[in-house]
C-alpha cells in the first residue's frame, strides 16, 4: 500500500455528553486529493479541527507521515507540515494582502521570532511573497487591507496563506462555499494548481467541485466514515446513496 500522509484510527470527540466523532478511521494517501462529503453537522469541520490540533481528541490516534501528532499544539502540527484553511474566512484583516502572505512565509523561511531582520530588506522573502500573490492572482490587490477584499478574494487569500508555508498536507474547509459559478470555477483551478504534488484533504458541499477535484472521496455521516473510494464507485455505492446522496442528482 502507498505511504499515508494522514492515518486516523478510532478517533473520537465528545463535546460534553454529545459524541460528535465516533471512532473514526481515515487514510489519506500521500499525494492524493481526497474530498470529504457529508450532511450538515456530520462533524466534518470538527474532524479538521482535530487533525490540525485546534481541538483535542477524546480518544484515538492521528498520525502524519508516520509520526504521531495526536493532541500536539496547533503550531507544532503546522511546523511538521500541515496547513489548513477555515470554513469561515480566517485571515489578518487589518494587514495588507501582501503582509498576509508574507506573514504566512516567515516561519517556514526560517525568520521565526527574529527581531534582527528587517522584513523589507530580505529580498527572497519578498520575492516569494510576490510569487504567491501572482499565483493566487492578487498582485493588483497587493496593498489593500485584507479586510476590504471581496468575499471570493478573501477566500483566495486564505488559500494563499495556507499554502505559503509550503506544507505538504493541505486541509481546506469548504473553500468554494458562498461563491458564484464563475468564482467557484476559478477557485477550483487555483486549488488544483497550488496543491500540485501535495496532499489535499478538502471538505466540500458542491458535488461538481468534489467530482472535479478529488482522486478519492470519503463520506462522513454521524461522526463516522462510512465509505472511502474512487468518485465513480462512491456515486454507485448503495449505502452512500441512502445515507447522503439519495435525493441529489449525481
Amino acid at each position: 500500500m502507498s505511504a499515508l500522509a494522514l492515518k486516523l484510527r478510532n478517533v473520537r470527540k465528545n463535546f460534553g455528553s454529545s459524541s460528535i466523532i465516533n471512532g473514526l478511521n481515515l487514510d489519506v494517501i500521500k499525494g492524493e486529493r481526497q474530498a470529504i462529503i457529508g450532511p450538515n453537522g456530520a462533524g466534518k469541520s470538527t474532524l479538521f479541527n482535530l487533525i490540525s490540533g485546534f481541538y483535542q481528541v477524546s480518544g484515538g490516534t492521528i498520525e502524519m507521515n508516520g509520526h504521531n501528532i495526536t493532541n500536539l499544539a496547533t503550531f507544532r502540527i503546522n511546523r511538521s507540515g500541515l496547513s489548513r484553511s477555515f470554513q469561515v474566512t480566517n485571515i489578518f484583516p487589518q494587514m495588507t494582502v501582501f503582509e498576509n502572505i508574507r506573514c504566512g512565509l516567515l516561519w517556514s523561511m526560517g525568520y521565526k521570532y527574529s527581531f534582527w531582520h528587517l522584513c523589507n530588506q530580505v529580498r527572497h522573502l519578498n520575492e516569494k511573497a510576490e510569487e504567491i500573490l501572482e499565483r493566487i492572482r492578487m498582485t493588483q490587490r497587493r496593498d489593500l487591507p485584507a479586510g476590504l477584499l471581496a468575499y471570493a478574494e478573501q477566500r483566495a487569500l486564505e488559500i494563499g496563506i495556507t499554502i505559503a508555508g509550503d506544507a505538504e498536507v493541505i486541509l481546506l474547509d469548504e473553500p468554494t462555499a458562498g461563491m458564484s459559478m464563475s468564482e467557484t470555477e476559478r477557485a477550483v483551478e487555483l486549488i488544483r494548481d497550488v496543491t500540485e504534488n501535495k496532499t489535499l484533504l478538502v471538505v466540500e458541499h458542491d458535488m461538481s467541485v468534489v467530482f472535479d477535484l478529488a482522486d478519492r472521496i470519503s463520506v462522513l455521516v454521524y461522526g463516522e466514515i462510512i465509505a472511502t473510494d474512487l468518485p465513480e464507485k462512491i456515486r454507485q455505492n448503495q449505502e452512500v446513496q441512502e445515507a447522503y446522496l439519495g435525493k441529489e442528482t449525481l
Partner: protein
Amino acid sequence: MKYLIRHLGIWAVAIALCAILPVIFSSDYAISLLSQMGIAIIFSLSYNMILGQGGMLSFGHAVYFGIGGFLAMHGINLIAGGTLPIPLELAPLIGGLGGLIVGILFGWLSTERSGTTFALISLGIGELIAASALLLPGFFGGEEGVSTDRMVENTITPFDFGQQIEVYYLIACWMLLCIVLMYLQTKTPLGRVANAVRDNPERAAFIGYNTRMVRTIQFALASFFSGIAGGLFAINYEIITAEMIGAIPSANVLMMTYIGGIGHFFGPIIGAVLVTFMQLTLSGFTHAWQLYFGLLFVSMILWAPTGLAGIIMNHEPAWKAGLMKKLIPSYTRATLAALVMFLGIMTLIEINYHLSLSIHPKDPMSLFGISFKAQSPAGWIIAIALIAVGFFFFKRGKNEVKNSWMDVHQAIKTGGK
C-alpha cells in the same frame, strides 16, 4: 542601514530638535521638563510595543520601569564605588537588562492568553512586586527608597553631570536610540507577527507561530526599553522609591499612550510629551489638575479612541489633496465652542475646589485674574451659562465639521478641489 538612510530626513530633524530645544527653552524648569519628556517617551513607546503592537493591555508596565530604575540606581552606586567598571552613561543599560530578564519571566507567566486574563495577571504582578518592595528593603530601600550621586568619576563624555543640561543630553541620546530601535522593531518578523497575533491568534498558530512565545518575546523587549527609561529616571532624579513600580505610574503610562494613540508608532510620543507637560504645568496652576487629566482621558476614550495620532492621520488624505482649508473654518468654530464649554466646566470645578478644599473658603478666589467670592451666585450663573452656550454652539459646530468632511470626501472622490 539603508532604512536609516532613507528616513534620514526625519531623524535629522529629530536630532536637531533635541539639540536646539534646550537652547530655546533654557530655564532650569524647561530643561527638567524636557528631560522628563524624554524618559516618558521611551516609557510610553515601550508600553505601546505591548498594547498597540501586541494587543496586550497591561496594568503593570511600571514594574519593569521601576525594577530597571532600582537596578540602575544600585549600579550607579557601584560605579561610584569603583566596583563596577562601566561608565555612567551606560547605567541605563543595567536597567534595560534588568527589565528584560524580569520581562521574560513575567511575560511567560502572563501571556498564555491576551485579553482579560493577561490584563488581570499584569495587575496581580504589579501588586505583588509593589508588596514585595516592603519585604526587600535591601533592594528597594524601604520607605525612603534608594538614592545615589550621579557625579561619578567614570564617564566617557566630558560631562560630569553636575548640571541638568548634561543629564538632558544623555537622556536625549538614549531616547533617540530607543526610538530608532523600537521603530525598526516594528518592521522585523517578530514585530509583524506580533501584529498578526494581536489581530488573529488562531490564524497565527496555523502559520507556525507559538502565540505565547511571540507575546513573551514582544513583552520582554518592551520591558527592556521600559527598564532603560527607568535607568534614565535613576540618573535624572538620583532617587527612586517603591512608588515608581506601583499602580500609579502604570496607569499613567497607559493613559499617556492612549491619549497619544496606540495605532501609530509616533502616537505615544505625542502622548508622552503632552501628558508630561500637562502634569508639570497644570499641577502648578490648580489642585484639580488630576481631575482635568481624567476628563481629557475619558473624553479621548469616548470620542477619539484612536488618540491624537489617529486624529492627525485621519487628515492625511485631506492634507494630500490640499483640502485642509475646507475644514479649518468649521474646526475653528467647534474648538472655540468647546473652549467656552470647558471654561464653564472649569469654573465650576475651581469654585467647588475652593469651597471644599481651601483653608479659608470665605476668602475671595481668583480665576484668570478675576477675583470673586465662591459663595456668590454670580460665578455659578456665569459658569452654567458658559456651559450652555458652549454646548449649543459645539453641537452646531460638530455638524458643521461633519458637513465639511462630507464636502472633502466628495471632492477627493471626484478629484476636484
